[in-house]
């Protein structure tokens, strides 16, 4: 059985971490773009108004100003919905922030399908891909509230640009305060030797559930929480490839060029084994209740378990 310690949205982990950071470090500065409350940065704004600005509905300017704040010596966190934070100002992020290796942290909230009823325009299903392709950019996709908090704090002090992906909906808390967290280092949550399931973000919980399903069928799955998509933990991947001989990846994101592709790059380069990929298959999202959408788009534990059974046939 998967142990769950309540439910809380990862966005609150991001918001709480910013306040913690703000108390300790006068260099922390936060920028919002008219979505401050929903992406959980308004709390910081209330506590530290002198280190907070709301730029209004102007994401390109938000990232440009974040770059300027970094030039002036701050550690700026700019946050809005992931689709707008990463997509709209992509070239500012590329040319102004990454090329100059500036200490700008980008919070991409409302990730994946789970933003639900707002539909495709507001669902971020491509930003892992477009962020990880940028030189210098680091990409972190924490799995729950507690891990998001740790990732945000750790992210502040990893030099250079960093993208943190977090979500709106309440999701299960599956890690504890004492669970280790280090950017770039994957966590094995459940050991196993038949197949390795690697997941990031909300899909880590589904991966753990999938391992339960597989166990009942006599399949012993290893579950790895790959909270850092870039730099990806190649050692953990190689070890899993060697010891398990088959890999399934799971992400709440497009299949192309995202997290699964990042794992595949490491696998093919180092120790090729059969792989299967769970994610959104080259289509836009739509309106619906988050849970219904996850079923419709094949992002549930049963889909991961099915992918594992499929990959085992090719082992």
């Amino acid at each position, binding site marked *: 059985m998967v142990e769950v310690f309540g439910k809380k949205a990862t966005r609150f982990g991001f918001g709480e971490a910013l306040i913690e950071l703000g108390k300790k470090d006068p260099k922390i500065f936060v920028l919002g773009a008219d979505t401050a409350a929903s992406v959980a940065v308004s709390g910081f704004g209330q506590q530290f108004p002198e280190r907070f600005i709301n730029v209004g509905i102007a994401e390109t300017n938000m990232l440009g100003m974040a770059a*300027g704040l970094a*030039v*002036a010596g*701050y550690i700026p966190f700019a946050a809005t919905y992931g689709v707008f934070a990463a997509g709209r100002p992509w*070239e*500012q992020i590329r040319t102004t922030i990454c090329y*100059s290796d500036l200490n700008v942290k980008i919070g991409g909230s409302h990730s994946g399908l789970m933003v639900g009823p707002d539909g495709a325009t507001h669902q971020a299903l491509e930003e892992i891909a477009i962020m990880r392709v940028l030189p210098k950019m680091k990409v972190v996709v924490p799995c729950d509230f507690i891990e998001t908090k740790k990732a945000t704090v750790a992210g502040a002090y990893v030099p250079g640009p960093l993208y943190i992906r977090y979500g709106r909906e309440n999701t299960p808390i599956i890690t504890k305060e004492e669970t280790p967290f280090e950017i770039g280092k994957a966590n094995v949550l459940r050991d196993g030797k038949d197949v390795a399931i690697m997941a990031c973000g909300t899909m880590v919980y589904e991966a753990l559930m999938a391992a339960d399903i597989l166990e009942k069928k006599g399949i012993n799955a290893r579950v790895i929480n790959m909270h850092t998509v870039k730099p990806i933990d190649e050692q953990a991947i190689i070890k899993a490839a060697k010891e398990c001989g088959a890999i399934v990846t799971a992400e709440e994101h497009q299949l192309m060029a995202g997290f699964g592709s990042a794992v595949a790059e490491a696998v093919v380069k180092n120790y090729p084994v059969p792989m299967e990929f769970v994610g959104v298959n080259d289509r836009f999202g739509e309106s619906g209740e988050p849970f219904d959408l996850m079923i419709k788009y094949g992002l549930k534990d049963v889909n991961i378990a099915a992918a594992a059974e499929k990959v085992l046939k090719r082992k």
Partner: protein
Amino acid sequence: METADLKKTAAEVRKDIIKMLGLSGSGHPGGSLSSVELLVSLYFNHINYNPKDANDPKRDYFILSKGHVCPVLYAVLAQLECIPKNELCTLRKAGSRLQGHPAKDKELPGIEISTGSLGYGLSIAAGAAVGIKRAGKSNRVYVLMGDGEQQEGSVWEAAMSAAHFKLDNLCAVVDDNGLQIDGPTKEIMNVVPLADKYKSFGWNVIEINGHNFDEIDAAYVAAKKTSGKPTVIIAKTVKGKGVSFMENLAEWHGKVPSKEQVEKALAEIDNSLKN
């Protein structure tokens, strides 16, 4: 620096621009030459800049939003002895710190941030200015843009912000030479009346002749004295200024002079000082 010395320095900078571009085989002479006086005045008389320590925390910040005119910035930095004069001949060559557009990762003193994609500089400057203001510091932020660059929507997002946050430590300069790659700015996509646009956005607007040192000097001084709002200096300039066969021709936006043209241009600039 007195006006006579500024003029002499401007001529030296112009000659360096011509030489650099002649050697590099590619680059942007037109806008580099039109912004010479604006940068010479800024760097020699107004900006708080420490040639011995480019990261001096007391420094004023300069962001070259129109990054393609970096030859003028490199030449000015060489005049200030921030970078060795002989390095100018490496412009745009493999292994050089003098990239075709300013690059932060080359650790060239005086380059605060990589620029070159148009329309980003004003946001960067506004971000730096708001951070400095909130920290209670007195550094100033300068940004140089082109008139064609005003066509980018992001300029107006930044213009809105700079006024909203009352960034009186921010001074934007528009090198208004009236030409862009494809032709006259007013024919490609008219940005006139630029002064009215900035005024309506809540800025202090100063219009000057961008080749007249007295007017430039007065504008920078007035910008420093302005409180509660950012200042934009809209400087009317001549693209290719100082080289007769380049002046007011859009084709010299991104074309470099031949060896003969370099000689002709250098002689002309030298002669201009004698008159």
